C-alpha cells in the first residue's frame, strides 16, 4: 500500500475542516488565530502535494508565497490582539461587537 495523493488531500481536508471548526467555536482570539494558521497550512499541503502530482514546481512557490502572507498576517494580527488587550484586558472576540448594526 503506497501513499497516493488521495491520502494527502484527505489529510489536508481534515485539517482544514478542523481549522474552520476552531474558528467557529473558540472565543479566544489567539486560538482563532491558530486555527486560521492551521487552515493556511492545510492549503499549503494541497499545493505541495499537487505540485508533486502534476510535476509543477509552481505549487511549491505558491506555498512559499502563502507562508509569507501568513507571516505578515500573523504579525499584524497579533499586534492588533495586543492593542485590543491593552485596552480591554480581554481576548474574547464576543466582547468586540462595536460593529453591531
Amino acid at each position: 500500500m503506497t501513499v497516493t495523493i488521495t491520502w494527502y488531500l484527505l489529510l489536508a481536508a481534515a485539517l482544514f475542516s478542523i481549522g474552520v471548526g476552531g474558528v467557529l467555536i473558540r472565543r479566544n482570539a489567539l486560538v482563532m488565530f491558530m486555527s486560521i494558521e492551521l487552515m493556511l497550512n492545510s492549503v499549503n499541503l494541497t499545493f505541495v502535494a499537487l505540485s508533486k502530482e502534476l510535476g509543477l514546481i509552481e505549487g511549491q512557490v505558491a506555498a512559499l508565497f502563502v507562508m509569507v502572507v501568513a507571516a505578515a498576517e500573523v504579525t499584524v494580527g497579533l499586534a492588533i490582539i495586543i492593542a485590543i488587550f491593552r485596552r480591554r484586558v480581554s481576548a474574547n472576540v464576543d466582547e468586540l461587537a462595536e460593529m453591531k448594526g
Partner: protein
Amino acid sequence: MAETIVFIIFAAVALVGAIAIVAAKNPVYSAIGLLSTMFSIAVMYVLLDAHFVAIVQVIVYAGAVMTLFLFVIMLIGVDKPDAYGPAVPAQRIMTAVVSVGLFASIALAGRAAWVTGSDAFGTPNLNGTIENVSDELFGTWTVVFLATVMLLTIAAVGTIALAYFGHEVEDEEAVL
C-alpha cells in the same frame, strides 16, 4: 513501505495536534498542538520531495510564528485559561455539522484527483531543492516576490505603528 508508516504516524500527529488546538482549554496547549501539526506537515513536505519548503516551514512556522504566538500568550497571561465559559451547545452542534459538511464536500470535490491518482504517484524527477525553487521564484515570479517584500515591509511598519501609537495618548507629543 517505510514511507507509508511515516505518513500514517505523522498524519495522526497532525490530526491530534489540530484537535488539540480547537479543544484545549489553555491556549498554551493549543499552541503546542499547532506546533506539532506544523512539524508534521514539514515531514509531509519531505515525503513529497519539497525539501526547501519543508525547511522554510520549520524555520518560519515552527520557529518564528510559533515563538510569536507563545510570546503573545505570555504577554496576555498564561495563567488565564480560556475563562470565557464553555461554548453554547447549539454552537457546538452547528460547528460540528459545518466542519463535517465541509470535509465531506471537499472530499467529494476532490474525488476526481484520487480516482485518477495512480499508485505510481507523483513525478519522480521533481525535486524541491533550493535551486529548483529559486529558479522558478526569481525567474517567473520576480515581480510577485518583490510584491511580497513590500507586503512584509508594510506589515512590519503597521505592527510598529500599532504597538507604538495609541498606547498612551499623553505620550504622543514626546513621541513626535
